[in-house]
């Protein structure tokens, strides 16, 4: 190889694009030619400089969670066609039967937004639990100990992971973590007396949806990155 040929192959050499024979011939030449050796060194330095200086910092820690949540939200609509007719019927039925529930006060809106925001904090990360249990009975028992009301868990088509105490919009509640088909769900359990009459029935924000309901003593809010029609199916019939 001549010096001119070597100079034309600097990039291919530095990038590991030469075949074995060419690389050996080039390096053998450089071993006997100080100027070509210096060119090779300089080429390598330029490549190292770009690798070192142009390397951007690592992505922000929340980006993976954000992407996972976006994928989860995108995943759900694909199932929608099968549910679409039922979803429409459910939505219409709920809209008619519970119109009063839809006309929420400002308080309900505020609480709904706070609950959605609280769930968003846990999306994509392992939640900090005060009790880590997968048996609903143990979680229910713990909630009754720490909350000053008869907290009960509704039957949900999801796997419990644990729970913690929580204060949302100034209201103390139990927060139970669930997982359903790989997606995190949050169930907020309130004392009806403290939750007030304006409890959110539906709310949505940033791909997250909330479903609220209650009984004579408790109010529940279920939040997750699944469409309202699917969220509607998570609570059991009991």
């Amino acid at each position, binding site marked *: 190889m001549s010096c001119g040929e070597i*100079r034309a192959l600097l*990039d291919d050499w530095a990038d590991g*694009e030469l075949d074995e024979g060419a690389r050996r011939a080039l390096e053998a030449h450089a071993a006997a030619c100080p100027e070509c050796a*210096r060119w090779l060194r300089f080429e390598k*330095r330029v490549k190292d*400089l770009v690798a*070192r*200086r142009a390397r*951007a910092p690592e992505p922000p820690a929340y980006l993976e969670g954000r*992407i996972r949540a976006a994928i989860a939200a995108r995943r759900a609509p694909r199932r929608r066609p099968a549910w679409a007719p039922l979803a429409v019927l459910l939505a219409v039925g709920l809209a008619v039967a519970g119109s009063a529930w839809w006309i929420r006060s400002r308080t309900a809106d505020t609480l709904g937004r706070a609950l959605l925001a609280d769930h968003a904090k846990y999306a994509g990360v392992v939640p900090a639990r005060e009790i880590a249990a997968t048996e609903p009975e143990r979680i229910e028992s713990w909630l009754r100990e720490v909350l000053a009301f008869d907290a009960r868990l509704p039957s949900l088509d999801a796997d419990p992971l644990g729970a913690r105490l929580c204060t949302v919009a100034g209201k103390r509640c139990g927060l139970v973590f669930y997982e359903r088909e790989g997606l995190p769900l949050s169930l907020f359990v309130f004392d009806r007396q403290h939750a007030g009459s304006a409890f959110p029935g539906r709310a949505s924000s940033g791909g997250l949806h909330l479903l609220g309901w209650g009984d004579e003593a408790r109010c529940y809010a279920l939040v997750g990155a699944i469409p309202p029609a699917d969220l509607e199916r998570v609570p059991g019939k009991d």
Partner: protein
Amino acid sequence: MSRAERDLLFEAVALDHLSSVWRVALALGGSESEAEDLAQETYLRAYERFRTFRPGTNCRAWLLTILRHLAADRYRSVRRETPIEDVDALEDRAPRAAEAPPAIENEEAFLDLFGDEVNAFLRRLPDGSRTALLLCDVEGLSYAEICQVLGCPVGTVRSRIHRARAFLRERLAAYARSLGYLSESRE
């Protein structure tokens, strides 16, 4: 493969390349918020098309290809503020046989000489050359993989990288020379 299995596979093989997607998105998008949007959009598009991905092939190159298409659509009409160098003029500037190589006076200090200058010089390159060089030097992709990402023949990739390096060689050498860290003396 069931949908659930495909979802698991996607998370296992695709999310592992988030750092690369992020870096290239940042290089193409400019600001961090644009890069975040671009990275998210890339993963959503990849998720939708994951059925077409063949396990065992280069997932990172596949993701970066999607990213490059999205960036091209998004920034098609955006004018760059940084003046772009005419690197075509550098095409034939491989060091000639008679040309003396720059002599680095202090090998150890040389790499530490440059900070933002490298990025400033990179910003002056046309998008195609800059992207090819970053994929090569920062992401460590082979020329064949860069071909796949950029959708152009290997000769074009080689030419873009050669021109970008020639430009950088000249600028960095001039900068180092001005600081007294390079000389042209022959050994």
